[in-house]
Structure formats: C-alpha cells, structure tokens
C-alpha cells in the first residue's frame, strides 16, 4: 500500500485541494494531508521535507508555491518530480504520470524512477475527492505555518538565518474568483489591438455572461492586461464550460491551456485561424463589429 501524501497550499475546501484528493483516490487513497497556511520558501520546504519522509507519492496542485517547492522537495528526499500531470497510474510499482509536452502538441507518459514520486497536478482536472481529516488519526491532516517570521524586513535575512523571504504580496485588481475555477471565460488575444478593446468591449460582454476575463500570451506581453490573465501552456490552465476566444489565433501553446474546456467558441477575422479547428461554433468577423451586437442581443435575451 503506497503512502500518498497531499500537500495543499491554501484552503482544503478549495476545488484544487479536492481534486488532489480525487487524484489520490485513483491510486488507492491518500494517507494524509499537509495544509500549508502561510508560505515562506525555506521554512516551508524544510518542514515539508520532514513531514513527507517515508511517503511514496507526494501530490501537489499547480499553484505557484507548489511548483516552486515540488522539485526541491523531490531532490531533498532523493525522489523524482514531474509536473502538470493530468492522469496518474501505477504500473509495476512505479508511478506513471501523463502530461502535455511540446507546447501542447503531444501527450507524454512519464515513469518516475525514484521514490518518493513528487507530482504536481492539474488538480481541477480530477474529480473531487475527500481529504483526510483529523478524525482519521493523528497526523492525518497537519497544518503548517511557514511564516513564523513577520514579513516586514526590519530584521535582516542573516539575523533570521534565512536566505530568501517574501516581503510583499500584491493582488492585481479584479475579481477574487480564480480563472481555473471559472465556469465561463471570455478571452482576448493579439487581435484585440490594445487595452481599450479589453476594457470597452470584452469587459461588458463578460459581465453579461457572468464570465471571467482572460487573455493570450501576446496580449499580456504587450502589457494590455495583467499577466495573471494569461491562459496557455505557461499561464492558467482552465477548464470552463464555455471559453469564448476573441481575436485569438489559437496556436497550440494557447490551446494547451484550454484543452479541458467543454465548449470553445471563437470570433476572429481570419477564417483560417487555427482556433476554428478547435471551436464548436464561431463567427468570422471583426470583434469590434460583433461584440457590441452580441452584447445587445444578450441584453435582449436577459430581459
């Protein structure tokens, strides 16, 4: 029986955490969960190394801290790490993880050769499961507090015996809800042409649809929208019911972030844009013409 440990950054009630539990259930069930409440790189890593000793498999989600910690955790435990897993299985006692490679153009199955296998997953892609609770025994759910040090840099790193610490945390303005949990997403690409397009056209549309806003890498690199809106191979991996891609070409690196979307719709002036090979329905036209009309129709339908 493999000892599977879940490492959860954030709340154990989150969809991501539940997905981890679900993934663990596919392997036979999680033995215990470690919930990390406050993160500072070194204290947390040290604590996790201790807490995960003896584990065969450590599962994490695809958030920033998990990705930063996982490979180092694996290294210190003498194990192996792999990330962005979308499926798991044991074969001949070894863990195999499925993940996208080559910018989303191919799927690979990776077999880990060292123990523990430390894997971070697209947790929301797994059906939700049940996270071990304290009632299942001592140590079944452990809470780690990493920030035993206050974030203000009054004391130097040296006196604290640390070499890195987070001194400031900021959220970009906007909805509190996470893109990965969104049901409906309205996303814009290079063809939007500037921040005004996002603010004046896409934002009101998103409101009408109850959607969250996102963008392709091109729009983020151009500085039109914050990097937190980026969806793609590097960026958020989303799994909405509806993904409306506006003025997005649909290159594989972007598609890699929306492979789990149930329905993709597209508005693009280029009839040959790759997005139309993935969309269920769409319009070939300039979004500046279509979106105002769309908003009008949607408003009518609402009333």
């Amino acid at each position, binding site marked *: 029986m493999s000892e599977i440990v879940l490492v959860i950054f954030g709340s154990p009630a989150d969809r991501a955490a539940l997905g981890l539990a679900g993934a663990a259930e596919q392997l036979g069930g999680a033995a215990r969960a470690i919930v990390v409440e406050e993160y500072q790189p070194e204290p947390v890593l040290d604590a996790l190394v201790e807490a995960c000793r003896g584990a065969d498999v450590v599962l994490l989600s695809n958030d*920033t801290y998990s990705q930063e910690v996982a*490979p180092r955790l694996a290294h210190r435990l003498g194990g192996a790490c792999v990330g962005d897993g979308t499926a798991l299985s044991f074969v001949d006692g070894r863990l195999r993880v499925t993940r996208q490679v080559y910018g989303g153009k191919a799927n690979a199955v990776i077999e880990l050769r060292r123990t523990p296998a430390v894997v971070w997953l697209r947790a929301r892609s797994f059906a939700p499961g049940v996270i071990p609770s304290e009632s299942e025994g001592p140590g079944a759910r452990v809470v780690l507090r990493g920030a035993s040090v206050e974030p203000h840099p009054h004391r130097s790193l040296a006196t604290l015996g640390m070499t890195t610490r987070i001194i400031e945390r900021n959220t970009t303005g906007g909805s509190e809800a996470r893109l990965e949990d969104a049901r409906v997403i309205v996303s814009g690409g290079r063809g939007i042409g500037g921040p005004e397009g996002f603010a004046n056209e896409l934002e009101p549309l998103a409101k009408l649809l109850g959607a969250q806003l996102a963008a392709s890498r091109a729009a983020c690199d151009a500085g039109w929208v914050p990097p937190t809106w980026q969806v793609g191979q590097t960026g958020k991996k989303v799994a909405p019911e509806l993904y409306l891609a506006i003025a997005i070409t649909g290159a594989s690196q972007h598609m890699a972030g929306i492979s789990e979307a149930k329905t993709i*719709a597209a508005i693009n002036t280029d009839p040959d844009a790759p997005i139309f090979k993935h969309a269920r329905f*769409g319009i070939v036209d300039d979004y500046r013409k279509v979106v105002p009309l769309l908003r009008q129709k949607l408003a009518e339908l609402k009333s």
Partner: protein
Amino acid sequence: MNILVCMKQILDPEVPARDFRIDAARLEADRGSANLVTNIFCENALETALQFREKAGGTITVLSFGAPGAEDTLRKALAMKADAAALIVDESDTKPNPLTAARVLAAAIRKLGAFDVILTGREAGDWGAGQTGALLAEELGVPYVAFADTLDVGLRIKRQTESGWEILEAQAPVVVSITNDEHNVPRIPKVRDVMMAHRQPLTQWSVAELGVEAADYYEVVELAIPRKETRCELVDVDTLARRLAEVAAG
C-alpha cells in the same frame, strides 16, 4: 554582480501542427524541417539579466548544455551584449532528464566561478518540465525563487503569482527562474554586435570532462499526438448570442 544565465536551444515550438511528428523509436519529436531556436523563457531570462546589469553593474555569462549547434544560442546572447559564453556539448544520444541537466550545469558553473545570481527560464518550450532551475539550486546548495520577471539591487526579486505578484528579498547566491512579462521581451541586437559576437571566444566542455554521470530520474515511456477533430459551425450574431447564453446559463 556576477550573473549567469542558462539558455536552452530547442526545436522551434511554432512548428505548424501539420509538420509536427513523433519519432516513435526515440520517443521524442522528429526534427523534420523544424529550425532550432532559443527557448523563449531563456531569452526572457537574458533580457532580465541585461536590465539587471544596467542597474547593478557586473558581468553576464551565458551557459548552454546541448548539441554543438547550441553555439548559435550563445552567439545570439553575446550579440545581445552578454560578456562571456560557455557551451557543454552533449555527446550522448539520449535526451537528458532535468536532474542530469542540473548536475551538468552545476559542474560547469563551479568551473566558471562564483556567481551571485543564476537565471534560468521557467521551463523549456519542448518538454516543459519546469524543474531544471529548482534542481540546479539544490545541486549548488543555494536558494531558489520561481516565476520571477524583474530583479533589483539589494537582491529584490519580483515574481508572478496566480493572483498578482510578490516581492522577495534574497541573499546571493540564488537561482531564479524567469517567466515572461511585458518588460522582459528580448531586445533585438544591433548588427555590429551580431558581427562581433562571432569573433568572441567560447569556452567549451564535454560532459565527460565535467565528470558528470547521467542520473536515473524519470523516463518517457509513451509519446503520442492526440487526435482531435472539430467542425466549427459558423453562425450569425443572433445564433451566437443564443448559444452563448444557453451554455453560460448552464
């Protein structure tokens, strides 16, 4: 500040899907007609390093572990005004895993000298493991910060999170992996610098010379291109509105 940037040369990730094929025997992408390019995140890392050097002063060394053709990546980096370059030539026929790569890079870095900041791209556009930087930090025994986009003096590091960004304070030496941002889009080199870059010396080692052995970390056991065919239905605005409203309402 002694800055080192690790840069990887990969098959062009923008190869059209039609031309993308798998070599079933070797379980990797078939080279085909694809060109070799520098991984974009490594270029973001170099650009971040260049901007940091403008603030903090110092030198930038670029390091690459790959086929002999990776020299192109290093020459381009020198054209962007990196100060020195080193190449570790991979003579083996097998694709290295992130741990082997980290060990090789660490061995080279120890030979190159003491560095304050070591930058890598957050992941490579081919395998996208996203671990080499973290494992490199462990091999060197130094701290690690992921998903950074800006470096500042005092060693302040700004990095991206799902909901925004954070500022970290770090002590040198530190390994930092870089992600893309509107400010670290790689600069275009001047032609004179491109021409001069070809005449600059390049340090070169083989993996054997560095005394590193391949690590058994993980292995690719399957590799396939998923088949997905959708027929897109082109509709008018009315229909689009209705369909969207339907799906959004759930």
